């Protein structure tokens, strides 16, 4: 919820023409670079009619005004303040929080707080069971009724390939390892926590990605923020996409290098920064930068866009920079055999200097990896903060990753993995196409299983999530500060485990909801009542 765009101050450049129905074709140096892409690359960021942002700002204005009014009432004791108070003994300490920090939380977030942190009590598969909770004091506290809302369709978890499951035969090896090794590790990789299971996972990851070596870490978030500092330092330059995940930003910050931010997926902006960096060198001294690292993600989780990898590889070679690719959302989710954006674009994995990914999403486990040249991985084994100071991955989790990797690669002798990848692709196209036809504004690449649906107004965010839950559909809604202030949205994550019926149900409900809440802002040609028909021949795949 908190600032995901820590280093983006506002909207993207509107003059760059990346919006309003503009289908972006690949471009380089102002010229189309279509030969870089093997297939059609379509991303859309449609702009709403002008009255929408105006009304949205008005909405925030009204809520803020009421916030001040209620703070005034609270201060004079007319309204009871539910927030936790400082201890009496410490009243004369310097206040722990500045007041404006909590204003947003107290007056805006509290109104819609019930739409986040909903507790679940089953596998986060295609459907899950929610623990019912109610509030008696307008979201300040929750009371659990003890009832369970059964079979809610899960459109929120990052379960792209459907490996969040509890079939006993799938879990058997995991259970065995758990009984043998116990739950934790109790040591770091460099000390005594380097188990044979880790080596097994690393071998498979290496094989899967087609790289020389790989190393695994216990947490995806920490993989970024504990390894970037090992690679970069003072006198180095990091060029980071404005929508990069917090972990990348934190890692870049911890490294102590200079950070410059380029516009989201905008190659002109990146090239300008690269050229500046090469020509001018470091500020004041004008010494050349020691190294330049480009930080990008495969799929951006809030926009659903896919990185323009071929162009970045070209730029990186031209300006002799290094490339760090975070495939947290894309590994397993795109590419004909699930090998991420590298395979999606047909880029040589050797061109990516650092390939990072997590096991949290498609693999349904926890942890992360870094893969690349053997020297890189060897170096990280010695100097990664994670290897020296943080506990290694639990062996049972490692076993689960081994199983899912084998399944995706077809090493278990079945075609389950390939089928799931295909199914995810079908679901993605199907869902996106229908939403677009219904007249919703959706962002991102047509192949990205992350589908943001723009709601804009803060009032609609809460209403949308609550009404969807009433219809037994669990959705994720995101607002400021995780998105720009006018671009609150709902986000759907498709899964290979979603069946045709589930998606149809969601689409039907969304259609009704779109009419009811009036969020069909798109001005593209649409079909007001699209027929929900699943035609196998409709899709063409190049598997």
């Amino acid at each position, binding site marked *: 919820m908190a600032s995901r765009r820590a280093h983006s101050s506002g909207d993207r450049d509107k003059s760059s023409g990346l919006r309003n129905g503009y289908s972006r074709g690949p471009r380089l140096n102002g010229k189309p670079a279509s030969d870089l892409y093997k297939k059609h690359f379509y991303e859309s960021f449609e702009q709403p009619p002008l009255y929408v942002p105006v009304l949205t700002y008005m909405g925030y204005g009204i809520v803020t005004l009421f916030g001040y009014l209620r703070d005034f009432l609270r201060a004079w004791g007319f309204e009871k303040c539910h927030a936790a108070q400082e201890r009496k003994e410490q009243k004369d300490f310097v206040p722990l929080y500045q007041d404006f920090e909590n204003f947003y939380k107290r007056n805006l977030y509290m109104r819609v707080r019930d739409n986040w942190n909903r507790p679940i009590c089953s596998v*986060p598969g295609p459907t899950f069971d929610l623990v019912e909770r109610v509030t008696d004091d307008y979201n300040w506290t929750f009371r659990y009724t003890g009832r369970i809302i059964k079979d809610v369709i899960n459109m929120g978890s990052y379960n792209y390939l459907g490996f969040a499951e509890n079939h006993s035969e799938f879990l058997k090896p995991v259970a065995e390892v758990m009984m043998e090794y116990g739950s934790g590790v109790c040591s770091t990789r460099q000390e005594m926590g380097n188990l044979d299971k880790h080596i097994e996972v690393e071998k498979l990851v290496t094989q899967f990605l087609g790289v020389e070596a790989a190393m695994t870490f216990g947490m995806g978030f920490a993989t970024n923020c504990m390894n970037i500092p090992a690679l970069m330092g003072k006198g180095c330059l990091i060029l980071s996409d404005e929508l990069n995940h917090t972990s990348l930003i934190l890692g870049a910050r911890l490294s102590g290098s200079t950070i410059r931010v380029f516009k989201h997926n905008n190659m002109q902006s990146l090239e300008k920064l690269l050229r500046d960096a090469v020509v001018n060198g470091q500020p004041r001294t004008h010494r050349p930068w020691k190294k330049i690292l480009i930080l990008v993600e495969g799929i951006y989780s809030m926009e659903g866009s896919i990185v323009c990898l071929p162009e970045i590889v070209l730029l990186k070679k031209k300006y002799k920079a290094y490339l760090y690719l975070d495939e947290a959302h894309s590994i397993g989710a795109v590419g004909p055999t699930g090998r991420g954006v590298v395979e999606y674009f047909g880029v040589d994995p050797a061109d990516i200097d650092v390939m990072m990914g997590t096991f949290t999403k498609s693999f349904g486990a926890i942890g992360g990896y870094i893969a690349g040249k053997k020297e890189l991985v060897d170096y990280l084994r010695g100097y990664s903060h994670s290897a*020296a100071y943080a506990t290694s991955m639990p062996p049972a989790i490692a076993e689960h990753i081994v199983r899912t990797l084998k399944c995706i690669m077809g090493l278990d002798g079945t075609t389950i993995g390939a089928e799931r990848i295909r199914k995810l692709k079908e679901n993605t196209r199907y869902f996106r196409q229908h939403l677009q036809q219904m007249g919703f504004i959706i962002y991102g690449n047509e192949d990205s299983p992350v589908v943001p649906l723009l709601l804009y107004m803060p009032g609609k965010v809460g209403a949308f999530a609550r009404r969807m839950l009433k219809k037994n559909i669990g959705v994720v809604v995101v607002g400021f500060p995780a998105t720009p202030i006018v671009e609150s949205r709902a986000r759907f994550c498709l899964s290979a485990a979603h069946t045709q019926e589930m998606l149809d149900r969601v689409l039907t409900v969304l259609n009704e909801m779109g009419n009811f809440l009036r969020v069909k802002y798109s001005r593209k040609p649409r079909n007001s009542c699209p027929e929900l028909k699943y035609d196998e021949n409709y899709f063409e795949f190049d598997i």
Partner: protein
Amino acid sequence: MLKIPWNYSKKEGSFFPCPGQQSPNKIVHWLFVGHYWVQLCFYCVFQAPAYHLILEGILILWIIRLLFSKTYKLQERSDLTEKVTESLLRNGSQNHLSLQYQRSTLPPTHKIVVNGNECINFASFNFLGLLDNEKVKNVALASLKKYGVGTCGPRGFYGTFDVHLELEDRIAKFMRTEEAIIYSYGFATIASAIPAYSKRGDLVFVDEAACFAIQKGLQASRSNIKYFKHNDMDDLERLLKEQEFEDQKNPRKARVTRRFLFVEGLYMNTGSICPLPELVKLKYKYKVRIFLEESLSFGVLGEHGRGVTEHFGVNIDDIDLISANMENALASIGGFCCGRSFVIDHQRLSGQGYCFSASLPPMLASAAIEALNIMEDDPDIFRKLSQKCQQIHLALHGISGLKVVGESFSPAFHLQLTRSRGSRENDVKLLQEIVDYCQNRGIALTQARYLDKEEKFLPSPRIIVNIFCIWYSASLSASQNFIVK
């Protein structure tokens, strides 16, 4: 002083050779003016002191140089276009000791197979032996069957499971605090908690021996950091007094500068305990908030394993935030922060490792709950652990060449060389020989690993000895003998 022959008068803004005499020709007029100025200059030059002339001479030369020289050399510029980038990796990584990972094949319980040798494990932080506990395993297994492996989402987006809520509740009750929050990685716990509160411009007092996670958290917070000498209360008080003096000079700034004091219960880097009662006194005297890192002391110290606060009998409400990881005594994964709701609840929107990372796998949360159950049911294990610690501690005293560092009741203490062999590399090598020697004879030890270049105050090389409460006395005495040798 210069005496200027002021025999020309100034009239209507210009000089004339003679008062009252007007020149009809302008050129002649200007010639006269120029002549006068040249004369004036010569007069000044002969009157001025030598150093003045030299200085001016140099200045003039410098100006001429600046006018005619180029601001950069052409060759240097062409270097930039064919820029030689440094390799992504630092040099010298090939022969690093850390590359030779120990490879363990059996579960890292009290017996472990390292590089093919079966050893008694002195190297894992599994103090209470809960890693191998059947009860814990069975509960984790049941949880695995119900929830699967991963959570596929952060806490905000359907990553909150009922077991997470239960675990938070249980930890809060166990520690007797209002609220607890769990993270999915031990390292990220304190490293995320610090920047949630301490921001740019705030003041932080830290012990020099603070562990790496605290250092990284502080770095992320971008606060002003003041280090005091390890466990030296006088040094801390000196810093606090200095700050008080500063504050009096600028009271307006002092009113908005938050102050924090970061200490560890049992220090990971030294094995010693923090003097908590004195710290609490200083807290109220100078109005700083204490954040306590208890990764080693939680589940170890105190009658019920509640850590240093219980050990010293300090009221837990006097500590603003306690953070610990569940990867040592609880033998699971992850970490938690606990304290008053006023403090802890803030992390649910501001703790980066909480908001932006996938939540803890439910089976590990269940394992931690069961481990807490065991700790509550049988507080005797803490007494046993303490006894074993003292026994080993005593036995290891008086080995020639090695000294024992750390408290006698601490389950993790350090063996250091009494005399350094000159350089750090040699010390590390010697210690590694000792570790290898023991390993070949069935005792798994490990050196404490540090990233030399990253640590603020690099601890000297050492071997960590970890004690489990489940060891059998026979194997104990055998191991003592070996280490002694």
